[in-house]
């Protein structure tokens, strides 16, 4: 990157086909919010059907499955991935490493504009014959391969696969950009061990994404071939539908499961690691202390990343795999709790001797700490193969992943948005509305997803249109109503957030300072909002680590790019 340049002048170049990472980041964030509204409304339909099955006779079983499938797909890929990875990754990485923009701005713009048709294809699939894909967000064949297996496996699934392929193209372009920018475009003095933890998490998340997503691309293409070109990658011989034997032979549905989870499990960490990274950034600024254990956090996350690509089989314990392989997957899976325990320790211990400032970002961040704990511990029940025999495909799984890739990620997104909002828009969010939103989000989210753990303990199976068909689950069925009520409350609270976000972005009080939270990392040394090229003069030179709080008597904090100290350096104990 050369000097800061003028940047585009036209509206189209500035706000629509922008190559500025900050604009693209905000485009992604707003796209994710729009998709979140759709995915959230789908959740409300699901919850209505589950709590009041009599009332929901307009929702047929096949429609219900489409809605469940699309809720999961949209939330995982088009809300959390887009918001947390594509949105915040874009906006934050160049600012935090001291780059003028992403390494490949054009590629960056393309990655966003490939996402847009992916979103439209996904949404359009509701309106085609047979409805949207209905084989679950995991899209297991043969259900997803054969239109005669479920109505949603017609054109809906084709659109689903095409949209996923476009999404993967987009995330691949994004990950390449993140990786290159972090490795090659750092400001002078920004050594790896001086990078903010958020940047570390995006680095690890990008590598994981690049390794894992090709497996899903392959699976999606093979599934398209099976569906439209008569191949049999995932279809064995001897399948009978309506008295007719299908001509396929030689494939196995298990291949798809392996490919899917080779992506699917790392994908959890592609999302959760940046969530933890953003949380560490917020913790540092609102405890006025460096996060506990910077190095052990970095190493733990690297260990998590390595382990995450060799554990996918724990999603398949019940498929009848060789017990020795199952046992291997179980042993390495619960090993992930070891680095995660260290991360949990570091999150909690970051509050030790804190000068706690409980503005909205910090409230969300503390919520994340607790959610990481609950989500991580829930994993033990499922990673231990013997207990997974009971919990597999139950509401325990549903509650578990709604904590890990639901609550952790959403709360960290809110922490991140409320933290960086003044820098993004030069205006302040309404603090009262943010605090209200925090309580109305965290309490119902924790309560309903914990209740789902209890339902799973009672054996209740997921993806069940009408749970009253069975008697075994009668003990936990009553929880359906409170969970559904809480889901409506949670959704309502998000309207407060959206109103606050857009209202404040347009009409909020202007910020007086470029560094309203008195934080240390490089993004706070830019003008507000940062101009095209981020720094009007030279790129800052990094002089110190990312969290220089409370280490120099006389100075509460020192910016990463600040060279001279009033008090002698080395006064820290």
């Amino acid at each position: 990157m050369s000097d800061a340049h003028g940047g585009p002048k036209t509206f189209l170049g500035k706000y629509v086909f922008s190559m500025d990472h900050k604009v693209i980041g905000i485009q992604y964030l707003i796209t994710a919010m729009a998709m979140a509204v759709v995915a959230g409304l789908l959740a409300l339909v699901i919850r209505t059907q589950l709590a009041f099955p009599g009332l929901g006779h307009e929702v047929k079983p096949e429609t219900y499955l489409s809605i469940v499938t699309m809720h999961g797909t949209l939330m995982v890929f088009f809300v959390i991935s887009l918001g947390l990875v594509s949105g915040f990754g874009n906006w934050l990485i160049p600012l935090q490493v001291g780059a003028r923009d992403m390494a490949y701005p054009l590629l960056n713009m393309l990655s966003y504009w490939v996402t847009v048709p992916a979103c439209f294809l996904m949404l359009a699939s509701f309106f085609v014959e047979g409805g949207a894909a209905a084989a679950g967000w995991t899209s297991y064949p043969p259900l997803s391969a054969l239109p005669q297996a479920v109505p949603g496996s017609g054109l809906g699934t084709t659109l689903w696969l095409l949209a996923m392929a476009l999404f993967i193209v987009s995330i691949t372009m994004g990950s390449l950009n993140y990786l290159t920018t972090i490795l090659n475009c750092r400001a002078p003095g920004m050594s790896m061990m001086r990078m903010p933890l958020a940047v570390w998490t995006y680095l690890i998340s990008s590598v994981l994404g690049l390794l894992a997503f090709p497996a899903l691309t392959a699976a999606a293409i093979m599934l398209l071939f099976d569906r439209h070109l008569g191949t049999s990658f995932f279809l064995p011989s001897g399948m009978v539908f309506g008295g007719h034997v299908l001509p396929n032979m030689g494939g196995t549905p298990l291949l798809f499961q392996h490919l899917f989870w080779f992506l699917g499990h790392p994908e959890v960490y592609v999302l959760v690691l940046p969530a933890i990274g953003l949380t560490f950034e917020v913790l540092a600024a609102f405890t006025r202390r460096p996060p506990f254990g910077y190095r052990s956090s970095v190493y733990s996350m690297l260990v998590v990343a390595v382990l995450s690509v060799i554990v996918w089989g724990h999603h398949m314990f019940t498929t009848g795999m060789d017990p020795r392989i199952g046992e291997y997957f179980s042993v390495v899976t619960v090993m992930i709790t070891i680095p995660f325990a260290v991360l949990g320790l570091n999150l909690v211990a970051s509050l030790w001797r804190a000068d706690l400032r409980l503005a909205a970002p910090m409230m969300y961040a503390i919520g994340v700490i607790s959610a990481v704990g609950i989500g991580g511990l829930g994993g033990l029940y499922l990673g231990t193969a013997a207990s997974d025999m009971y919990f597999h495909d139950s509401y325990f799984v549903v509650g578990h992943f709604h904590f890990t890739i639901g609550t952790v990620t959403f709360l960290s997104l809110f922490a991140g948005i409320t933290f960086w909002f003044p820098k993004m828009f030069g205006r302040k969010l309404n603090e009262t509305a943010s605090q209200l939103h925090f309580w109305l989000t965290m309490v119902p989210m924790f309560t309903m997803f914990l209740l789902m753990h209890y339902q799973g303990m009672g054996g209740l199976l997921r993806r069940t249109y009408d749970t009253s068909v069975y008697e075994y689950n009668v003990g936990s069925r009553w929880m359906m109503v409170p969970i559904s009520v809480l889901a409506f409350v949670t959704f309502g609270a998000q309207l407060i957030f959206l109103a606050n976000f857009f209202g404040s972005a347009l009409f909020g009080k202007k910020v007086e300072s470029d560094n309203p939270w008195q934080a240390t990392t490089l993004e706070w040394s830019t003008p507000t909002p940062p101009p095209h090229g981020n720094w009007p003069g030279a790129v800052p030179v990094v002089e110190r680590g990312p969290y220089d709080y409370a280490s120099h008597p006389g100075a509460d904090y020192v910016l990463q790019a600040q060279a001279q100290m009033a008090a002698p350096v080395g006064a820290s104990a």
Partner: protein
Amino acid sequence: MKAIALAVFFLVMTVAVVAGFAAGGLRPEVASAHGARVDTVVDYVLCSSGVIFVIGHAVLFWFLVRYSGSVPVTYVQPSSAVQWRWALGVAFGMALVSEVGVLVLGLPVWAEVYGEPPADVLDAEVVGVQFNWLIRYPGKDGVYGRTDPKLVAEWNPLGLDEDDPKAADDIVLPNGRLVLPVDRMARLSLRSHDVLHSFSVPQFRTKQDLIPGFVAHTQFRPTKVGTYEIACAELCGLGHYRMRGTVVVMSQEDFAAWLAKQVGYYEGG
């Protein structure tokens, strides 16, 4: 004030979660031999993760209460050695807790479910079709007759081959009702004719996927006479939610009497 509110929330949540799990009563009463050992694993994970959950939230609670007031800024930073000692201590503790569950308690359960069957094992076949369970016993000869998907018809849902002499005495129950004797290991061969299904009986703590093109096996020893539900645990289409079957567990004498009354598929006209 906000710190206290957060601390109180975490306190209430922790107490409620622990009380909820301690009260128990959620799991359907266990009715198989290995199921009791699955429950032991679940109880172990409940206790160990419960302790970690409580400690973590107790510390969070304490920090929120302790540091919410105006605490003078401290310049004391934990040394690198202290940070690493804590990390390694926690890592070691977690490794112990998690791998004990998998290796010491979990491994024997897997060995029982997927290990060599005992000599007196009872064989049965479960075939999943949208949205029903087809049950077959090998009959007096103890051998399953040949099946062929091309022969599948309304009157012959399994596609059992009439020309195979071993098929004649096979007993087929087409209505999702599996009958088993108590206290005897049952070994199921599981297949699917169309999509994925999963055979699950919550009381047995058993869950085994049915995968087209592939015969899976699972075994369990029912320990209580009674009728239980078979629930499909893997999404299999719009009727997934009502793919309900039953397992009837009889005393060994009753089972022998029941079996004697059954007629082979191609026997007795």
